[in-house]
């Protein structure tokens, strides 16, 4: 029983991390109908930002987290500016190719700038400490991850549903041309979307680094794919869907290892099977609508 609860917590922690990064995929898709394949590398870059500000500039972790968020948001905006905006009127395939290209560019840039050898992500003692609850030993980090996710998603849903920027985002995602005619600043709205998505990826990256303290320029590849799967499972374009998709995928992965230890080597396979199944049975995902809007 204790093991089961422990496994559930493992799954929820992993799922929250998936969810935070999946939001970036889903927001960009919602607004541009583009699967931003470079998102996983933005996630990777955020870990290096945090790594350098802690290990090289000796900043406290919370300052580094803020810097990483800002830096990554800026990178996301920049990426959109140079790789996607010039292709705004181009066929969708061109933008997709540009996204794949940007992904490789960032990875190789990472190898040149940071080196291919794995670096050790710094530890934060406070978050790494253990708490004992009813016989369960849980790391404070697990709570931190779950609470951060709830707070951030709450804030995000507020922004998207209640603020002017959010209304603009939803308008743009519904109809590009009409919202332009109505005086919505399309470029600004898209930039903000990228900034928010990348910022959340930075939070996810930071906590990912604390939990799995090893970073390489290719560290984003597999988590990126998983988060993309999470976004699709939840219904790409839907923020709630991204979170639910992340949680489902996270808990599913952990439970497969727990319940079928002999199949544990194939956990990635199950994630991809889930992707294929959902695309066959319910392509709009669990929470997506036919005409997907935000949230």
């Amino acid at each position, binding site marked *: 029983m204790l093991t089961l609860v422990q496994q559930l917590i493992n799954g929820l922690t992993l799922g929250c991390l998936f969810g935070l990064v999946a939001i970036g995929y889903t927001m960009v898709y919602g607004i541009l109908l583009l699967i931003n394949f470079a998102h996983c590398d933005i996630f990777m870059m955020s870990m290096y930002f945090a790594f350098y500000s802690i290990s090289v500039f000796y900043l406290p972790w919370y300052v580094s987290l803020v810097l990483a968020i800002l830096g990554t948001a800026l990178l996301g905006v920049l990426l959109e500016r140079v790789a996607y905006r010039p292709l705004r009127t181009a066929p969708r395939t061109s933008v997709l190719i540009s996204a794949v290209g940007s992904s490789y560019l960032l990875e190789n840039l990472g190898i040149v700038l940071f080196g291919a050898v794995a670096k050790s992500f710094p530890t934060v003692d406070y978050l790494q400490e253990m708490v004992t609850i009813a016989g369960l030993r849980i790391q404070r980090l697990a709570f931190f991850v779950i609470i951060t996710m709830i707070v951030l998603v709450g804030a995000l849903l507020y922004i998207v549903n209640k603020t002017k920027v959010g209304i603009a985002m939803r308008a743009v995602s519904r109809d590009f041309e009409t919202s332009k005619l109505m005086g919505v600043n399309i470029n600004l709205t898209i930039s903000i979307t990228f900034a928010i998505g990348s910022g959340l990826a930075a939070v996810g990256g930071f906590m990912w680094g604390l939990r799995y303290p*090893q970073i*390489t320029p290719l560290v984003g590849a597999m988590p990126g794919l998983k988060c993309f799967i999470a976004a699709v499972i939840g219904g790409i374009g839907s923020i709630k869907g991204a979170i639910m998709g992340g949680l489902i995928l996270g808990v599913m992965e952990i439970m497969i290892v727990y319940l079928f230890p002999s199949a544990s080597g194939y956990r990635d396979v199950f994630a991809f099977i889930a992707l294929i199944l959902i695309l066959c049975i319910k392509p709009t995902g669990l929470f997506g609508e036919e005409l997907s809007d935000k949230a």
Partner: protein
Amino acid sequence: MKKFLCAALSLVMILSLAACGGGNGGSSSAGNTGGSDGASGDTIKVGVFEAMTGGNAAAGELELEGFRLANTIRPTVTIDGVEHPVELVVADNKTDTVEAVTAAASLVSAGCVAAMGGTGSGLCIAAAPTFDEAKIPVVGTTCTNPLVTEGNTYYFRLCYTDPGQGSILATYAKDTLGAKTAAILCDITDAYCIGLAEYFKANFGEENIVEELYFNTGDQDFSAALTTIAAANPDVVFSGSQYTEGALMQVQAEQQGLDLTFLGTDGWETETFLDIGGSAVDGCAFVTFFDADADPTPESEQYLKDYDSVYGGKPRSSYTAVSYDAYNVLLDAIEACNSVDGETLRDQLYKTSKDCVTGHIEFDDNGDAIKDIAYLKSAKDGQFTFGGIAALSN
């Protein structure tokens, strides 16, 4: 603005292409750093088949350090009285079995007369047929799986093999640690790890394995597997893993407050393992090829002196010693047979009998060095510690 952007972007593109190119075609010239005084003959090209990027990059870098060290100390080879400078040609196998074949082919087409290297048996197994076909002898370094040399008559190997490593670990667990039960957590995508796990299991007794789980190279989350293992409460955990995954799983075991004793592989012996692992890897144990703290031999003293004079300080890993040996074994063979012809050189390599840094080296019919000892290592306070010498019963 647009023009500038265009120019900047194309520059970035070119840079990234250059970054890919370094590994892709995979043959960049390196080495020949030593002076070529008195070297009048043609340059002899020797291939270095290593992982420069990907999961094994840190180990590959360490081995390259050993090749370069030996090349600096001994920059030429004498054939029929003519001194030829030796040039190292490095090919990056990217820790990928497909890229490994490409890397081997690039060494062949670069005109290498022989090659050295290989961390990660899976990569060497993939590349071996390419070398065999081109009749290029390869002196393998730390690729421990039997299949690397089996059936490949041009592949030699300096290190012990996995059956030996597996039996030492099993004996160590049973006799020294007094373990009765063990769990296995093994990389299912790495031939080296699977092989080692099998040998460990055979020697430890299959009935004493309480839990057996698998993961893939590059996996980062081990929380589920560790929780399952901890519930079975084994005395030791055999971790069939390379250094990144090995270190990560121990960090996560510590995060979860699990008290597990990890036995690992010689793939762990890198600084990155200590960096990532931190205090979590204290008390782990694995088998390795050489230890600078063991009783010195004339060869090991010379090696440590050479290392200190070129890089300063003590070697960071035993990998460097193996690759240093590989270079010298190969050059000795070339000088002994006065030829760089693939077949002649291979036959000469079989006749090798040489005291090396990592022990006396003679090859058996398979091309495997006949080894009788291995070194046990552990970690404490961010350092590797010498854990004694174990006898090998191959």
